[in-house]
């Protein structure tokens, strides 16, 4: 099969969908891999490395027009895909159903990592998890270098440095990784989430769970995802979190609800009562932010508080992020190809079927259909 890997041209994006390491494997199982020139450079992979691994370097058109295109972000407008071809990537299908409908019209069979079911077996193709892992880790590093304080406690001849207090909002994959990383650095970490299972998971990383007077959600009914909370619960969450936020040196907000605006957890008022020098990292910036004041894509200072809305955090560890993403892509390819590497679209597989967002000229995912109707 022919696999195309276009360069990601979105600003700040430094990842690439396949790394030379996995290209070598694909080439060995007689796939033809087309890499757009300099597609991997920003992630540390030279064209030479790709050709070494058995790929062909091409221009953007050829890459996008391949039989099977592996991308990180959705194709930019104006890109020409092969009708009847396949596309795999983090296509944000639920953020923009209209775009999916347009994509369907091109006759492309598109698979979105966002639509992969969050089951145990699906984990190897779960790019959301792998990328969230990077985001959670990187968020803590940013926070630590931005903070005017040390994370760990230090008892020194020049006085005792108290450990920083770090609060993580949303204990999904990114949140848990942030907890782990902040704990490694020696911070005192607490975390909050609306899901019932989260408390145990937070504690399993040695952090403490912030209890707020609401009914915890049993996410088993909704595929592991949280749901929007009722207005009165939302008020109680805001009231319950405020004192914890105010006494934190760093807040890392990761709360999200798939396809919905990110829940509001930090009000402007709360930010104003934070200590001068505190830092908020809002990983939910791209879906509106957990903080009222977040400016997506920007780092701002509100009073003496820094609020990071950067949406390219994952791209700041482009090497490993791409490596993991590429593994997810390859694992997905394994699911949709048969003997000899031919594309068979194993539709019986619930992962493949679930991940499919457009097929036969129409949107295929029930949630999309619902959104469009």
């Amino acid at each position: 099969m022919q696999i195309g890997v276009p360069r990601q041209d979105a600003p700040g994006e430094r990842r690439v969908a396949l790394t030379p390491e996995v290209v070598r494997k694909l080439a060995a199982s007689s796939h033809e891999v087309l890499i757009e020139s300099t597609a991997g450079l920003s992630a540390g992979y030279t064209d030479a490395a790709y050709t070494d691994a058995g790929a062909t370097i091409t221009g953007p058109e050829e890459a996008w027009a391949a039989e099977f295109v592996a991308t990180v972000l959705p194709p930019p407008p104006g890109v020409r895909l092969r009708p009847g071809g396949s596309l795999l990537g983090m296509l944000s299908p639920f953020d923009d159903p209209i775009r999916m409908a347009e994509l369907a019209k091109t006759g492309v069979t598109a698979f979105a990592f966002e639509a992969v079911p969050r089951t145990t077996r699906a984990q190897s193709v779960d790019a959301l998890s792998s990328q969230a892992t990077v985001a959670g880790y990187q968020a803590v590093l940013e926070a630590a270098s931005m903070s005017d304080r040390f994370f760990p406690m230090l008892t020194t001849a020049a006085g005792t440095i108290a450990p920083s207090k770090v609060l993580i909002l949303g204990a999904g994959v990114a949140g848990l990784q942030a907890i782990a990383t902040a704990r490694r650095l020696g911070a005192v970490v607490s975390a909050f989430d609306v899901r019932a299972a989260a408390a145990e998971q937070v504690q399993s990383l040695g952090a403490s769970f912030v209890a707020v007077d609401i009914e915890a959600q049993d996410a088993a009914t909704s595929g592991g995802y949280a749901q929007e909370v009722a207005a009165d619960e939302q008020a109680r969450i805001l009231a319950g979190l405020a004192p914890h936020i105010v006494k934190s040196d760093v807040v890392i907000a990761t709360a999200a609800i798939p396809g919905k605006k990110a829940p509001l957890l930090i009000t402007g008022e709360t930010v104003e009562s934070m200590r001068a020098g505190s830092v908020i990292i809002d990983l939910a910036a791209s879906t509106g932010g957990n903080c009222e004041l977040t400016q997506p894509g920007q780092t701002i200072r509100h009073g003496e508080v820094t609020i990071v809305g950067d949406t390219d955090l994952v791209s700041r560890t482009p090497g490993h992020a791409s490596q993991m993403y590429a593994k997810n892509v390859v694992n997905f390819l394994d699911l949709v190809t048969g003997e000899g590497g031919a594309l068979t679209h194993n539709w019986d597989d619930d992962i493949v079927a679930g991940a499919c967002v457009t097929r036969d000229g129409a949107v295929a995912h029930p949630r999309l259909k619902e959104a469009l109707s």
Partner: protein
Amino acid sequence: MNTTLAGFLYLIAAVLFILGLKRLSSPATARAGNRLAALGMLLAIVITLLDRQVVSFAVIAAGIVVGGGLGAVLAKRVQMTAMPQLVAAFNGFGGGASALVAAGEFLGSEGLATRTVVTIALSTLIGGITFSGSFVAFGKLQDLISGGRVTYPGQAFGDAVMAAGVVALGVWLVAADSVPALWILLAVSLVLGIVRVLPIGGADMPVVISFLNSLSGVAAATAGFVIESNALIISGALVGASGLILTNIMVKAMNRTLIGVLFMAFGGEGVVSAEDTGDKVARRASPDDVAVTLAYAKRVVIVPGYGLAVAQAQHTIRELATLLEHRGVEVHYAIHPVAGRMPGHMNVLLAEADVPYDVLFDLEDINPTFPRTDVTLVVGANDVVNPSARADTTSPIYGMPILDVDESRMVVVVKRSLSPGFAGIDNPLFYNENTLMLFADAKKGLSEVVSSVKSL
């Protein structure tokens, strides 16, 4: 032979028994201990043959040849798995011998002192119970008799009557020196042995055998009272007491009480030693079992899972691994890609406990090594070691690569119950032949294992 000299030699034999028993309770010296005890026995037999009122050697020789031959053949031929029932049978023979000695003494002598008759009655009673009880235990273990709890209607009352009968027969025997009384006493003893062991479940047979062994010691001691032999008294008392202690240790390891085991068919405790789930049975182990299993392995693989994180047992598992390494065990860790609840969850924990990176292994690297792994220790992991991912096409996790822990010689799983993990599905691993379950919070359970390994 000079009887005083004989007396001293008997004392030496008894001392050899003591030393032998002591050595038998530690793995490193057990074999030497057994041989020491055997030496003591040889000494005792030789003295007896040289000394005492031995007139005719023919009967003795016949008995020794027949018994020795039979014993040797049985001991050599029987399969390892049938050992417990064999011990039961041997024990039965021992008890029978004590009863016969007492009976012989009674029939062979005239005008015995009252106290001798009392001890003869005791010896017959205890020896008889041991004899028949042991053979019932044998039958249960050999599957000749149902392993279930067999009772007869109105047993509580019937048993009480028999007990009273025993006392009455004893009085009769002592008062009247009556031979029939002896025979009836023997018969009732045999019946008592049968009806008291039948109601006990097959899983408890080891405890019963140990208890009967203790009884056979007492029988030997009472026989010693009869023939006025200190050697018998000492050895019998020794076995009686140490057997009781051993029984107690075994009962404790099963989280039971002796009374509970012996009388449980009649209400009372209903705990079963193996966790029952339908017809599948999970084998429950104690921390001590796990400790020995691990300590004598050559290669151990540790599989951490979410439960390790929940219990925050990372430091404890590290400590255990270090202990084992110091004993020369090779210890590796197998990290499944999705163990825990976030990518790298296990890495975080193990790094915190300072487990060196070079003993952490990936799925692909560790899987081929399981067949040559003696023990795999699964700590709070479940889905990632679920063999249905390999075998059961209907399983929701079918096709996911798992850690093939079931291929190692023995698997020990530490978790709190049989409840499922994240994927919510049952795990056949827990019911495997070669799987032992340690039901405990990982931190608590492992730290008990650590203590136990330290004291080995």
